């Protein structure tokens, strides 16, 4: 039986919590003006698709693929970006 569309959850989270390999779309960028502006100028604008490529050996910073290039971001700053998950690191079957 097909699950009704009303049950499809929209997972909204912050960029620092997206697992490595996960894809997400930017919903909005918060934070102080200078930080927010810098993140947007680098391409993290509303609707933009990003992919978390990897994390540094010590866990921080993370490397994102955005607008076709790689961007390193500290988790502390990534927390300001609210995103909607579009695919997890290991998307389970049938939840596309």
């Amino acid at each position, binding site marked *: 039986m097909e699950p009704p569309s009303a049950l499809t959850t929209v997972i909204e989270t912050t960029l620092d919590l997206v697992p490595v390999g996960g894809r997400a779309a930017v919903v909005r960028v918060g934070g102080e003006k200078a930080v927010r502006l810098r993140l947007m100028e680098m391409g993290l604008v509303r609707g933009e698709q990003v992919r978390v*490529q990897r994390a540094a050996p*010590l866990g921080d910073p993370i490397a994102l693929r955005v607008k076709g290039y790689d*961007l390193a971001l*500290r988790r502390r700053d990534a927390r300001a970006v609210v995103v909607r998950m579009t695919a997890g690191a290991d998307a389970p079957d049938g939840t596309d």
Partner: protein
Amino acid sequence: MADHTIALAGNPNTGKSTVFNALTGGRQHVGNWPGKTVARKTGTLDHAGRRYAVVDLPGTYSLSAYSLEEIIARQHLVEERPDVVVVVVDAANLERNLYLTAQILEMRGGVVIALNMADAAAAKGLSIDVEALARRLGAPVVETTARSGRGIEALKAAIAGLVDEPLSATAEQAAPPATAPGVHIDYGTEVEAEIRSLAQALEAEPGLRAGRGARWLAVKLLEGDPDIAARLSGLAGGAAMIAAAAAAAERLRCALGEDADTLIADGRYTWIHAMVREVVQAPPIERVTLSDRIDAVVTHRLLGIPVFLLAMAAAFRITTDVSGPLLEWIAAVFDGPLANQATRLLERAGLGGTWFQGLVVDGALAGVGGVLVFVPVLLSLYFVLAVLEDSGYMARAAFVMDRLMQGIGLHGKSFLPMLVGFGCTVPAIYATRTMRTERDRILTGLLVPFMSCGARLPVYVLFAAVFFPRHGGSIVFAMYLIGIGTAVVLGALLNRSLFRAARSAPFVMELPPYRMPTARAVLAHMWVRTSGFIRRAGTIILVVSVVLWALTAIPAGDGTFGDTPVEDSLFAGVAGAATPLFAPLGFDSWQAAGALVTGLLAKEVVVATMAQVYGAEVADEPPADATPGLVEDARFVVTGLARALADTARAVPAIVGLRPFDGEAEETPSALKVAIHADFSRSSDGHPTLAGLAFMVFVLLYTPCMAAVAASRHEFGARWMWTSVLGQFAVAWLTALVVFQGGRLLAG
């Protein structure tokens, strides 16, 4: 005098420097932007009978007013109003690159786009319709591959073409250059309405003289740009405009639920995105490039740090070991053949044995030698830096180390300067250039001298031999640890106090694709920076050498000028005057103070000075009539160079091997050790070991040599140099005090 001016703008890592070099040939000048620590390159281009003055603006991702580079770039564009702006754009990374381009096009016309790095774009499988792009941007687009020179002639022609078009009206104060803006970006109905009303109000206000730049100003005001607001607030009607813009932003926030600056940034990228979709054809699935594959290893969870350590070890070896033989050769040439020949020349001129000979040979010549001795070190440092930066590895190094450096409040890129500092502080200070923000550069530059440089090592070795005969190695190691510990503590303190305000900038760093550095770029970089050092820092070092020589030559009482033994000179007098300063630290003899003073010139000299002032050294200067002939000296120079080059070559394979410190301790005469022990016993009231330890700690932490101080001034400016000099002295003094007095208390 140039006919026209060109400014080169663009994102970092787009090959802008290569374009600059290609346009200006070899003719360029590197300095700093006035009052800032950001590099400024200028040059000239001669083309089709015209001369252009070219300025390379700092690489920026945008023209907002929040980073030093951006402020410099924007200020230049607004105030200098160059005739042509060349925006260098990375073809493989078009969307993000076009953000800056869009901002520039909104501001003015007279823009040429250099679509650079076509090879990288091809590697990604991208194909770009250049004509369509030019049409959409309203500006000529020239495809270039700057490394190979392809497209450069076409670029020059495009620049010339723009200059031929009639330029419009004249200078205006608060507004951007009067050349008409190239594009009109549609920000959406509501935003456009607000922009239009603001622009009309701006045009109507005569005091602001907005003219053609009204729309650009309106956009900036709506964005809440602090720099524009500051400029306008001083003008008639300015404050009212700022208030109107704030009200407009508020209306937009209510209507659209977003801040105005977000809406505008969004608007720009929407415009760019639509353009790129039309103009660029990309393969459906993103190709995995070689860069991706390399990164999988280099930033791998387990391999990342070992790779980093290997790279840093190699960097360190190159700057210390490989340059070592050449450094020694230069020192030997100055001490030997050059000094000899100068002496002979002066003798022939009848000035032999006079104070003038002393001035020339021991003052000026030694000073020049003292500067040139750093050339091999700096050349190798800049070689290493150029390779690391141009290849793209530096960003990965920062990526891997950032978490660790964050704890100290430093940037990931601080690791390399700190590491190089263990060899020599001078290149370490110059290595801070790799960091993008002034704050990180200065903070690192303040802490780097605490990484105990190689020249201080002989002092530890000597004193450890005197006071800790059985634990020498551990004590020396402890010194290094104390240095690192002090840097960490000081870093944390500075972060919370002096540098707290500058913390708001986020760590946002591009990881550019890996590229093979070109020999030409690397060599150019090495030459430009090293010659800068010789010119700027070199003069200071030379002056100080002469002054110090003069101090040793001026007799404090009787005795002739230029012929006094050290203990009777003004130098001893000055050192003597300084000794009470060291009384609480346990070593208030003029000999110890004197050694510390000479240590300001070069730390290597401390041990030699001690030997001299404690009278324990046998003079090794050959008598004047044994001066070798010109032929002998020439042969010395040549064979010495050959041997040095051979040693350098031999050191290269050793780069990969990790060897522990090769502390070269010369055989110290036991007479010196006895003398030191006796003197320190006296000055410390029977606590020689503690005094010795305090002395070592002082040497570890106090102001570095003249060359490092000169480098500090060259890189950071006089104010920070003095902060560093005095601060280090204070830190050294306090720590030594704690060691000596605290130790005495503990000893009971």
